[in-house]
């Protein structure tokens, strides 16, 4: 895979006494991108550090010794890890443009759905990979079926408008943005899983992300994304 450098110009944080925000992330990670969306929505300037997860930097290991993962936000030298924890921290620290609802019940609903989406993703993604990289027809069908089963739960909840409260992006929408990765990877590999026909509400949501002014700055650039999936998923498929 070619060396990728994060080329979307970000305002580099001038090291001031007042505020220093750094984000350790990976351009391909939906969890890292979520944090960028949150920071951009709040208009917080930050320095982005792209991590090579094969050769993790001493800084990353120092800031997240427990999990050694990205994303990690470092605010005035203090590290915070875990994407949903970071998102709440951002919302509490920079109070304008709230990401979470103010009302405790609505907030509880947002937390419930964000967790639901995260948990579902870890069920969906392996099924998607199976569908996209399997050698045999049967295995592919199984993967598609499994992925669609879980996607269906999301679709049903979305249709009933149980989450995705408003016009602008909030906590739940930002969490749900990881479905874009499913849409892109299926397109790259030419397999249909999340179709407009079967999942009209989810499809509409992905369109919303792509059209949103803030979010579209944070979607990974198309060509490197395609190249990445072709390389990773292609290699997996070839090995089977």
């Amino acid at each position: 895979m070619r060396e990728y450098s994060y080329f979307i110009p970000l305002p580099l944080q001038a090291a001031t006494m007042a505020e220093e925000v750094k984000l350790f992330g990976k351009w391909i990670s939906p969890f890292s991108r979520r944090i960028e969306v949150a920071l951009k929505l709040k208009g917080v300037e930050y320095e982005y550090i792209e991590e090579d997860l094969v050769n993790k930097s001493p800084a990353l290991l120092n800031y997240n010794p427990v999990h050694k993962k990205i994303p990690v936000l470092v605010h005035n030298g203090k590290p915070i890890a875990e994407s949903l924890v970071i998102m709440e921290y951002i919302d509490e620290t920079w109070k304008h443009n709230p990401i979470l609802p103010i009302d405790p019940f609505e907030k509880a609903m947002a937390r419930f759905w964000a967790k639901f989406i995260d948990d579902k993703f870890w069920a969906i993604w392996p099924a998607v990979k199976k569908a996209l990289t399997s050698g045999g027809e049967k295995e592919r069908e199984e993967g598609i079926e499994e992925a669609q089963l879980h996607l269906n739960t999301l679709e049903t909840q979305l249709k009933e408008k149980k989450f995705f409260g408003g016009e602008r992006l909030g906590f739940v929408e930002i969490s749900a943005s990881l479905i874009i990765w499913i849409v892109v990877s299926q397109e790259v590999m030419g397999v249909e899983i999340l179709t407009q026909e079967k999942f009209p509400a989810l499809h509409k949501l992905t369109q919303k992300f792509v059209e949103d002014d803030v979010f579209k700055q944070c979607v990974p650039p198309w060509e490197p994304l395609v190249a990445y999936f072709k390389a990773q998923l292609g290699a997996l498929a070839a090995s089977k």
Partner: protein
Amino acid sequence: MAEENKVKLHGVWASPYVKRVEIALKIKGIPYEFAEEDLVNKSQLLLQYNPVHKKVPVLIHNGKPICESLVILEYIDETWKNGPLLLPQDPYKRAKVHFWTSFVEKELLENVHLVVRSEGGEQEKAIKVVFEKLKLLEEGLKDLFQGETHHIDGENMGILDIVLCSLFGAHKAQEEVLGVKFIDPEKFPLLSSWVTAFIEAAVVKELGPPHEKLVAVYQFLRQKTLQASAA
């Protein structure tokens, strides 16, 4: 109690997740009605209140259901602001508590459950993982308190205390049934003193269940595992 302010908790006595919510309600001094659910024959109400997961605990407040124990704990903290707080006010300290709570929930809890539900090589592996995670937690607690002693009493329990309590409150029963000592004061002095403190807290003692019942629960789970593998 006015109808609007009515608090009802759907749960089962044996569930540590339900226990978390009860501890929180008692710490805050919130009166509530407890509805014992039959998880084999789930009530219509439960299925209506938690259609997504169909599980307990479910808290009903002002007629509105809240599900998932950690979500409920935060809701309680944000709604009843009089009385002890379950989370720190400072965003960074809050984030640290959130991080460690998530760690206990995802990394420790599942592996302890695995120890109960497995045998032989698989169980040995799970036990090893639990000890590794406990070591990380011990370090984390040192960082969290940075020299300050963390006092626990009925009033002074936070979300992390509650979550740890729901897992290791039964550590003596776990030791008795599984033959493994997770809460070892020599290996994990800070964690052990913490666990001992919350077992002694009045609110925890009051809620139980007593040691014998906990042993019975673990024995039941263990039997199920051994029977399943013998079949």
